[in-house]
């Protein structure tokens, strides 16, 4: 028993240990480059500083990544999150912009409802394609990823919709208890999702479906519903992120909102230690991953790295993360999974290659 708990704690340390190290490392680099980077001052009633920016800006990514985590845990993937964010942001801003009194709370609430509504539809659509018809997730969601931009364009009729609604702005740039509101939203969502997955059986069932879908089916799990559900959740998370992204600049640009966020989210999930092959997932890991990615972006600006090299810089850090995590994986694989019931090829490929690698 003891040995076990200690081993588990070890493992979990493994899983979150390295991401934490990287995050701290990045912050340290910034601090060295510019000591004031870590400084946080009080400006008209709220905290102010690069750290706060990072946290605020990472909020939407956290939302998207949390939804993505569940999808990936079932062995799927959702490429359409960026487009969904763009759509929900667009519809919300469109509605507000058409109202006489943009500051009316009711108006904003309706706008949010509309956005969430469309996100639900989008999520359901993805879920149906994957679970209902059985199109492979990458393809199924790729469709909405591409077509979604078109939809967003249609909603904004190709324009950039500018709004002037303080309640809506609050979502993106408001402060509460000296901290950005967006953070509280992100925290709330993360908390909610973890409770729903971990206090109910949803988490285990998701992991079962991701781990061995056929076995789950024969165990009487309604995999289709579960899969549908996670895509819906993912869609809604993306929709919420869309509000933040548009509220941040009080305008909706169908083309730009949430561009590339799907890749960032996938990275966050993987850096957080959830395998793309599905199965066990870690929400806390994902949150960490999101923070790392945002810090990376901010670092590029803060250190004013030239646009050409910034991409390389980012890539290098990601490699670094993967590399230092690899040994941990490897150890895990060799110690805890040699007889793994065939995880999907890539995973196995790595798994077994690592085994091959084990030094005699």
């Amino acid at each position: 028993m003891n040995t076990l708990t200690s081993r588990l704690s070890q493992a979990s340390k493994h899983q979150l240990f390295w991401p934490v190290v990287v995050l701290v490392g990045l912050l340290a680099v910034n601090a060295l480059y510019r000591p004031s980077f870590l400084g946080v001052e009080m400006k008209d009633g709220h905290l102010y500083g690069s750290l706060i920016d990072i946290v605020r800006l990472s909020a939407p990514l956290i939302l998207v990544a949390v939804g993505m985590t569940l999808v990936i845990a079932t062995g799927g993937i959702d490429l359409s999150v960026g487009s969904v964010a763009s759509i929900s942001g667009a519809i919300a801003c469109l509605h507000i912009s058409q109202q006489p009194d943009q500051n009316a709370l009711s108006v904003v609430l309706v706008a949010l409802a509309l956005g969430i509504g469309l996100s639900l539809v989008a999520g359901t659509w993805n879920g149906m394609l994957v679970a209902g018809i059985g199109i492979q997730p990458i393809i199924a969601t790729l469709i909405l990823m591409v077509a979604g931009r078109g939809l967003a364009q249609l909603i904004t009729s190709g324009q950039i919709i500018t709004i002037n609604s303080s309640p809506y702005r609050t979502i993106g740039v408001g402060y509460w208890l000296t901290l950005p509101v967006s953070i509280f939203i992100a925290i709330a969502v993360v908390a909610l999702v973890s409770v729903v997955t971990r206090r109910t059986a949803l988490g285990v069932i998701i992991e079962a479906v991701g781990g061995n879908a056929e076995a789950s089916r024969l165990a009487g799990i309604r995999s289709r519903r579960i899969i549908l559900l996670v895509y819906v959740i993912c869609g809604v998370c993306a929709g919420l992120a869309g509000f933040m992204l548009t509220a941040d600049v009080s305008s909706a640009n169908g083309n730009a909102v949430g561009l590339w966020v799907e890749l960032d989210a996938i990275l966050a999930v993987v850096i957080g230690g959830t395998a793309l092959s599905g199965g066990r997932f870690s929400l806390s890991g994902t949150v960490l991953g999101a923070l790392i990615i945002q810090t990376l972006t901010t670092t590029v600006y803060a250190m004013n790295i030239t646009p050409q090299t910034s991409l390389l810089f980012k890539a290098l850090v990601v490699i670094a993360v993967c590399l230092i995590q690899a040994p941990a994986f490897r150890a895990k694989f060799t110690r805890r999974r040699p007889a793994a019931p065939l995880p999907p090829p890539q995973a196995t490929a790595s798994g077994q290659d690592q085994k091959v690698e084990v030094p005699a």
Partner: protein
Amino acid sequence: ACGNSDTGDKGGTGSGKIVLGFSQVGAESGWRTANTNSIKEAAAAAGFELKFDDAQQKQENQIKAIRNFIQQKVDVIAFSPVVESGWDTVLKEAKDAKIPVILTDRSVDSADKTLYKTFIGSDFVKEGKLSGEWLVEKTKSATGPVNIVELQGTTGSAPANDRKKGFAAAIAANPNLKVIASQTGDFTRAGGKAVMEQFLKANPKIDVLFAHNDDMGLGALEAITAAGKVPGKDITIITIDAVKDGMQALADGKFNFIAECSPLLGPQLMDLVKKVKAGETIPTRIETQEGTFTQEQAKAALPTRKY
């Protein structure tokens, strides 16, 4: 602006109307949409049949689209090149097909100037220069160093390269003027804001912001106010384009100067098309009528602003 409604005509010059094939860069900004609208309205007004194509920022798309125009034997082809270079091939094809080509708003760097009839559009270098010169003029009294931060457009794009070039050339006149940080904001508000936030924190003393387009400037506004600074006062803001939101900001005194980059070249384009079709000779470089705006001029112009 969701595309044109004409799909009836099976292409070619079947109907008597002049058929104009136009390939647009995309719909990346309010400016671009205004440009698109201007062209569509003007075409309709002139009674042309417009075959409109949106290249979504991809040169391949644009080349493919142009080849299609050639096949469909349109009377005149006009397009705003996504990038400057790599057009010789397709332009030659057009020339072989005896279809005149007009470049709008962005030029190409083909050595053979006979490949296209004319280039109508703004001069990005000039826009940069105008911005720079205005700043030099404004700060000539300044004794100490003036710290400038620059929000570049999408890396590698012609407007970004040229506006940077022109601006740099202009401010060289005053050694006090220094660009202390320059980072791409991808022509978007979110980009402009996120970058500016860090600029503000990294550089305690920023006197001037030069943004390659209004949208980035507008994004930066948020960052500046959040930093407790007053845009237009603590930090002088210069942008390019003069889209409605930008002009509003200028009129409200948040911006200090905008070099116009007018998208309304539709009418000009259409009578060029007529001329070309009629075989008249026209100059190979035509600049869109555009000016610059100070806050006062903005207040005056705003009510009559089309976009």
